[in-house]
């Protein structure tokens, strides 16, 4: 049940709504757990055992194991949570931004320095479909 769904028209955007928040509760709580140094040590020591503590779906777990940043979002992950895993891996937001948008980190950085991703052509799936 949703009152508004017009945000689904925004391209490349996974709004963290009630459904996604429920669906990925365990995935996001796993990511959240990495803000404690003792948990980071345990995860580093044995990822399999550590991940067993979080009742994710096999698909969600695979996105974590594969560091499939976009896949995590598809299955309900929220960027502020998934970024904690990126921090664990020593990655910056440019790395993750590039990987989610199929760009190299250098290309992504260059795009930001020249004003970022333009809004033109990036606001509406329906408009984009109409314009081919």
């Amino acid at each position, binding site marked *: 049940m949703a009152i*508004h769904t*017009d*945000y689904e*028209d*925004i*391209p*490349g*955007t*996974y*709004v*963290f*709504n*009630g459904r996604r*928040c429920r669906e990925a*509760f365990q995935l*996001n*709580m796993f*990511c*959240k757990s*990495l*803000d*404690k*140094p003792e948990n*980071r040590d345990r995860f580093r020591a044995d990822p399999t055992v550590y991940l067993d503590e979080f009742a994710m779906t096999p698909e969600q777990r695979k996105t974590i194991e594969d560091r499939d940043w*976009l896949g995590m*979002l598809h299955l309900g992950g*929220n*960027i*502020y*949570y998934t*970024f*904690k895993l990126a*921090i*664990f891996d020593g990655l*910056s*937001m*440019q790395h*993750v*931004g*590039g990987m*989610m*948008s*199929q760009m190299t980190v250098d290309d*992504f950085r260059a*795009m*930001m*320095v020249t*004003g*970022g*991703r*333009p*809004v033109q052509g*990036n*606001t*509406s799936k329906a408009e984009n479909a109409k314009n081919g």
Partner: protein
Amino acid sequence: MARIVAGVGTSHVPAIGAASDHGKDQDPYYKPLFDGYEPAREWIKKVNPDVIFLVFNDHASAFSVEVINTFVLGVADGYNPADEGYGPRKVPYVQGHADFSSHINESLIFDEFDIAIANQMDVDHGLTVPMTIMFGKPDAWPCQVIPFCVNVIKYPQPTAARCLKIGRAIRKAVESYPEDLRVAVFGTGGMSHQLQGERAGLINQEFDTMFLDNLQDNPEKLANISHTEFMREAGSEGIELIMWLIMRGAMENPREVYRHYHVPISNSAGGLICFEEAGE
């Protein structure tokens, strides 16, 4: 009586804190950004607030998806910088003002704004980066801080209109506190940015300029922006700008004294706007 003397709207991008902490603020990438903060730092010294009411959001640091509150007021004596995965930022402990917080809590609830409170809360870059932006690197922050945390992560965030209204209620709460205090209100987050998905890196300078141009005199126009329009135009994380409307609501007759805008900081547009309250 306590009174609101100034308002600040500012981005709180974590990279700003990291650049300051690691002495990179004069690197070519950051220099234009930090140079633009200097006039604001001089100005806030003259404003000399006793207390900052600081509106920000927690980024899965103090809170998680276990319990999601829309508005949380810090009521503690003080707040530690949070460990966001790198260890806590080495910035000063944040001194609170528990009695003033408690008064604001009562005033807001009796005014029918049913906020939650936090007796213990570590504060992440959402709060500490605006302090760095305005005060640099002191051994101790020059004033007390009352943190006010807004859910901007889990949809639906509070409406922009609600944010403007709660800002007005905060003004009423501040003005009914008997201690003679100079209060500055900070609204933080934004400006346009999207961290997630294929649209990561989105920046909309036109939207940001429109937002800055209307904040002083047409806040009602900004309060009518829907969730979808914020996310579409300013990026999914650009909806943080609703927190600037809480600051605006807390000001009665703001007069813009300074503005600074710079792209990019990490994956965001950085904005800063300073207001004085007329007659103060």
